[in-house]
């Protein structure tokens, strides 16, 4: 399987120019295979969220390189990174981060609109199909603030899939959901992984959930403590 994501000797130091710099990641070497389903676990403050943000080009490492689709990202300009994120990466965050001013359907269409391509019938059909997939056909025209937490998270998942990204990065996607909903969301993510061959990298602190992944990576104090592939 080709590698879709690669981290080479990643260090991340916060407050580099201050008297007390804090290093949160130490020489991380990590790579992910295409269409794999990975989980990253670790305690609060272990550096796992920072790692995910670096993987998603939202944050820059202090040194080391990030390769997405075998392309080195450290030298890319801001706009190129924006395009790369728009086309290749879908994000699911713990706090949903939907645009509250827009309906569920509009939120799902947003990544596509950002790419500035015209919304055709096919695109609209795809957005509707994604909403059906996450079980939201009935509430797709509701404003996102009028939906339950679970519904919002499903919308965020549908949105992350809109541009058919190769990679989905999820940071505690079920962090504030009840256990039944959590279970359903993971079933859904697994299903998407199988159906669209999308690579998933999911941060969770729930070992029970993490064990369902193909690969479990544990981060401890900014270093890889454990890396198990089933």
């Amino acid at each position, binding site marked *: 399987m080709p590698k879709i994501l690669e981290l080479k000797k990643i260090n991340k130091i916060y407050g580099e120019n201050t008297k007390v710099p804090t290093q949160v990641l130490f020489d991380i070497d990590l790579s992910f295979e295409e269409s794999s389903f990975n989980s990253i676990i670790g305690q609060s403050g272990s550096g796992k969220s920072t790692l995910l943000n670096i993987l998603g080009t939202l944050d820059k490492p202090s040194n080391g390189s990030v390769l997405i689709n075998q392309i080195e990202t450290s030298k890319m300009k801001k706009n190129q990174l*924006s395009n790369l*994120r*728009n086309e290749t990466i879908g994000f699911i965050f713990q706090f949903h981060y939907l645009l509250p001013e*827009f309906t569920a359907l509009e939120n799902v269409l*947003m990544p596509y609109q*950002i790419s500035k391509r015209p919304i055709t019938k096919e695109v609209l059909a795809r957005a509707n199909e994604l909403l059906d997939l996450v079980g939201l056909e009935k509430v797709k025209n509701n404003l996102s603030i009028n939906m339950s937490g679970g519904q919002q998270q499903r919308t965020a998942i549908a949105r992350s899939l809109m541009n058919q990204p190769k990679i989905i990065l999820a940071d505690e996607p079920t962090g504030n959901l009840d256990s039944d909903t959590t279970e359903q969301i993971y079933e859904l993510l697994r299903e998407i992984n199988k159906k669209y061959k999308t690579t998933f990298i999911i941060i969770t602190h729930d070992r029970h959930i993490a064990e369902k992944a193909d690969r479990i990576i544990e981060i401890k104090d900014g270093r890889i403590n454990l890396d198990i592939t089933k």
Partner: protein
Amino acid sequence: MKLAFSIAKRFLTSGKTQTLMIALGIAIGVSVQVFIGSLISGLQNSLVDKTIGSSSQITVKAAETGNYISDYADKIIVIEGVSTDIEIVSPAVNQSGALVNSESSEPVLARGFDFSRANDIYQFDQKLVEGRLPVSNNEVVLGIDLYNTMALSLNDTVEFQVPLVGTTSFTVVGVYDFNVKQINQTWILTNLDTLQDLLSIGDEVSQIEMQVKDVFAAEELALVVETTLEDSNLTVDNWIAQNAELLSGLQGQSISSLMIQIFVMVSVVLGISSVLAITVLQKSKQIGILKAMGIKDKDASLVFLFEGLILGILGAILGVLFGLGLSYMFTTFAIGADGNPVVPLYIDFGFIALSAGIAVAAATIASLIPARKSSKLSVIEVIRNA
């Protein structure tokens, strides 16, 4: 562009109260602008109209006192050909003397006019309070103050004495009121022929009077008239040269009006930019997620520029409506004893359009700061602070 516009529109419509408040803030600025502007230009126009509206604005005279202008009919044709901005051209003969009856003798200035022309300048017919204008020779119209001082009545005969020239008899056929004591007391109006005969000057006149379309252009036009006539025996005078104080008063008014308008605009700009700066903070989560999804910095800042533009347009429309409403109320309720508005407003649609345009531009410029802020907002900050 389209994406940024639709996001901006949605941001604005989702917070309707806030949007309305900002638009109202702009609207009040614009309405003050429109109202003050209309008020001041109305004030100026009525002042100009009252002081020089019924008098000669450019006057051609003989260069030396005591001389007269010959071939005036030809000169009038020449002057009328100078510019279409010269609306009325009228010849006049002036002669001072004394008006005498059995009871008193009053110093007066006899003014001989071609009434068919002069009436367009002085509006004698509207100022006539009794009788009629002169139609044949030796008929005069007196000012109401002189008429009362000399205890005259219509059709009385008075003598007009000019030292070294002679005496002639006039029949009083009418009484005028110019609302200016100086004129009412001294001017007696008759036709050209009467004075030309008395002075034995044939077909010559003392001066040629003019009114122009734009009174503030009188100075330049006077110069053009002078160069066109090209006659060293003539001088050309204009109201601006004669009324320097009035002009500086008018300019003072214009400047103070401009100052008020500038300060109103500055406060509008500051208001909008501070409110929009807060909206960036309010929407930082949204901007952050849009950036994570790949929106470009340029589009992220365009969102706020469009917000400024939409708010500006909305505020300008509301402001013009408020301003016109305020003006209407002013002209309806602030009326003098005669039932006319205290200050007649001058509604200049060009000026209103300019005020609206400035408001839109100001709102857009005011949104530049928040737009920049939005462009600089980093995704990671937003996510970490959530």
